């Protein structure tokens, strides 16, 4: 597609369950970012990929969060044993250097 695609667009999960969020970046974009936006908060940087490698994972909130990127394209963000404070919109962005183009986000609600 022409833009960054994220799936699912909405996810409701029970506390303690694992969830997997997917991001399809714009074709050819080497950089991929994951952000989280909680209600009333600004964007929180989670992790950045350059190709398949993530030079900096320090933004991940806890060891329940992990992310991977394969083939320099699709990325998945996995949250294990979800907690209510994980509820937020998770945004993915891809870039080829100038600007970063965002997906629509995945709205995660942990009940």
């Amino acid at each position, binding site marked *: 597609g022409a833009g960054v695609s994220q799936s699912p667009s909405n996810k409701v999960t029970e506390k303690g369950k694992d969830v997997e969020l997917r991001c399809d970046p714009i074709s050819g974009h080497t950089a991929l970012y994951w952000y989280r936006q909680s209600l009333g908060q600004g964007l929180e*940087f989670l992790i950045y990929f350059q190709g398949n490698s993530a030079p900096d994972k320090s933004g991940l909130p806890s060891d329940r969060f992990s992310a991977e990127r394969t083939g320099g394209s699709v990325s998945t963000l996995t949250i294990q044993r979800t907690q209510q404070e994980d509820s937020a919109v998770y945004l993915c962005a891809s870039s080829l250097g100038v600007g970063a183009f965002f997906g629509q986000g995945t709205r995660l609600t942990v009940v």
Partner: protein
Amino acid sequence: SQELEQSPQSLIVQEGKNLTINCTSSKTLYGLYWYKQKYGEGLIFLMMLQKGGEEKSHEKITAKLDEKKQQSSLHITASQPSHAGTYLCGADSGGGADGLTFGKGTHLIIQP
């Protein structure tokens, strides 16, 4: 780490009026991005500024980066209902690995 402060946090403007949103950085900006977010939609890239004193325009929106590269302003002329939304500034720390840092956003409401 770099921090971005946006002002005002929210703004209500009568249709047709001009308005300005500011973004101030705690460190020198290597790249300053302006985005717009509408409820239920993803972020829309507006423009990027890199050079001190740079100014870019897109339709009725003009963004400037000051000479010291620590402050940017976004100016909307003759505001329209379509301008309503949340405006976010984002900064590139220069190394890439830290991702982009964002301000908390300015929520703009246009009153008819």
